């Protein structure tokens, strides 16, 4: 056997008639970070729930640290620490009381649990707030406490379900730093996210899932090569103007697409953007807003699901064909 700390093979899980995960396979080597990237409803949480023994897989094989989730669920639970999408800490208890509770549930003595709580509170910048009830915490503090609770007794595998959804940039960066530190200390991390940037910054490898299936696997660089590193976006609220702009820009950039009230040109830099504005001005089209931005998950999906530029199913194309 290789040194895979998480091994998922042909995982399937349905709820009634609804197939949440149809066929997902991936491997996370020990000491690396895997980003599971996908939109809402892609099946990310279902994968995680199967992995952490919360759900029984319908088919496939899942092992964590060599323990099979069906044959040895207790072994899996002893090797894995999970933080879910909600900060699963008690709101009425203080931060410290929460950490002590989880420590003692994991068989630390009262003294050990207390010391560990202090250590974690200070590491997560919560020492001052440690004796306040969690309901007085901000969203970012709550998330940090949640992560601290998962680390009370270190385990070889850490699973984070959308750890930064809804967080402000500062808290997000603080969380990223913790994940990087954990990786350095040898912890294997699986994190789900809707943000390409997050997966890009943290993950050694990314698995993109959509509608319960893996649609791409690779390093962040491999994935971004498929999309381009930047996007030029021209926002045009008027439908007719947008149609014309798309036609004009396609003359030079054949992969230009229409998406959500804007014309998007993948790739390009500031010069491209200037060129776009000049061309539009020449044809008398006034853009509501132009921007150079990083690719979003939408763009990756556009690129990966083949619903990108010029392909059948592109809303712009369909509209023209009808006309």
């Amino acid at each position, binding site marked *: 056997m290789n040194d895979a700390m998480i091994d998922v093979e042909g995982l399937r899980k349905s709820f009634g008639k609804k197939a949440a995960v149809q066929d997902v396979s991936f491997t996370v080597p020990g000491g690396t970070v895997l980003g599971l990237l996908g939109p809402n409803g892609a099946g990310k949480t279902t994968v995680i729930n199967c992995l952490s023994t919360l759900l029984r897989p319908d088919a496939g094989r899942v092992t964590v640290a060599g323990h099979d989730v069906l044959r040895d669920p*207790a072994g899996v639970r002893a090797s894995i620490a999970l933080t879910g999408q909600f900060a699963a800490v008690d709101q*009425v208890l203080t931060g410290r009381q929460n950490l002590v509770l989880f420590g003692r549930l994991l068989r630390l003595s009262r003294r050990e649990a207390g010391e560990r709580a202090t250590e974690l509170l200070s590491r997560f910048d919560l020492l001052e707030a440690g004796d306040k009830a969690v309901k007085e915490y901000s969203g970012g503090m709550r998330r940090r406490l949640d992560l601290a609770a998962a680390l009370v007794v*270190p385990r070889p595998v850490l699973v984070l379900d959308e750890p930064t959804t809804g967080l402000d940039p500062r808290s997000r960066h603080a969380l990223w730093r913790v994940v990087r530190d954990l990786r350095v200390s040898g912890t294997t991390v699986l994190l789900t996210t809707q943000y390409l940037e997050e997966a890009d910054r943290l993950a050694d490898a990314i698995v993109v899932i959509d509608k319960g299936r893996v649609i791409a696997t690779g390093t962040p660089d491999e994935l971004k090569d498929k999309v381009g590193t930047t996007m030029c976006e021209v926002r045009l609220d008027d439908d007719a103007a947008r149609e014309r702009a798309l036609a004009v820009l396609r003359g030079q950039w054949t992969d230009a697409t229409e998406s959500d009230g804007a014309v998007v040109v993948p790739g390009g830099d500031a010069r491209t953007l200037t060129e776009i504005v000049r061309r539009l001005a020449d044809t008398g089209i006034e853009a509501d807003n132009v921007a150079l931005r990083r690719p979003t998950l939408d763009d990756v999906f556009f690129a990966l699901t083949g619903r990108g530029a010029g392909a059948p199913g592109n809303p712009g194309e369909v509209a023209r064909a009808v006309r």
Partner: protein
Amino acid sequence: MSVGAGPVPAAVLAEGGAASLLRQSALLAGRNLRVALSVPTVVGMVVSPLLFYFGFLAVFRKMFQAHGIDFGQYLPPAIVVMWATFTAVSAAVLLSRDRRGGMVARLRSMPVHGGAVVTARLASDGVRALISVCAVVAAAHLTGFRFATGPLGAVAFVLLALAFLLVLALGTGAAGLASSQPETVGSTLHMPAMPLLMLSTAFAPASSFPAWVRPVVELSPVSAVVDALRAVADGTGVAGAVLRACVWLAVLLVVFSRAATRAYRRAT
């Protein structure tokens, strides 16, 4: 094989065994009680059942007297059973809230004994109910409620009331764990709770019901428990009534514990 940082000896995190169950249940019950024993909720635990008691007593005492029933002796078991039912519903709401907040999922993904969450809930609700029952019995004593069976009868009365609460909370708890919408759980469980209480001997003797509904009243597990509580207090027909209540509770215990186990194993 590499196990990464901070490998934990498997024995430290073994989750089975009665010792784990006891220790972890106690820890979680402590957490539940810390949440429940704030001043306003304690006032609720004591004041609300007393309001019901004195309210019913003020309104119906004379009417029952006219029918030859000593209402001060008749009413307390009914209030106790009603309050136990409400406590069981609130247990379900609290479990559902823990599920929605992710606490149940976190505990289920940890090497924590599978029975600890529900056991802790029952233990802490047992404490809550104990406070309420004692408050009702003490207040009722002031208005003429007596145990013909003496202190032993009083203890049996409280134990029986607690047993009823624990069994019922196991059933409602299963419903609570099955849903992550505490508000829905609360309103859904209150709906059958009221007719269950009304169609029993809690507030009126079986003979006062119309003939067609009387079999339901006589068969009701709520009636069995209320009748047993009254028998224990009055000292008449104790053995038969208590046996009947215990049979009912044993049957429900089997059904509800299966439901609760199943719901816990599926809660995400």
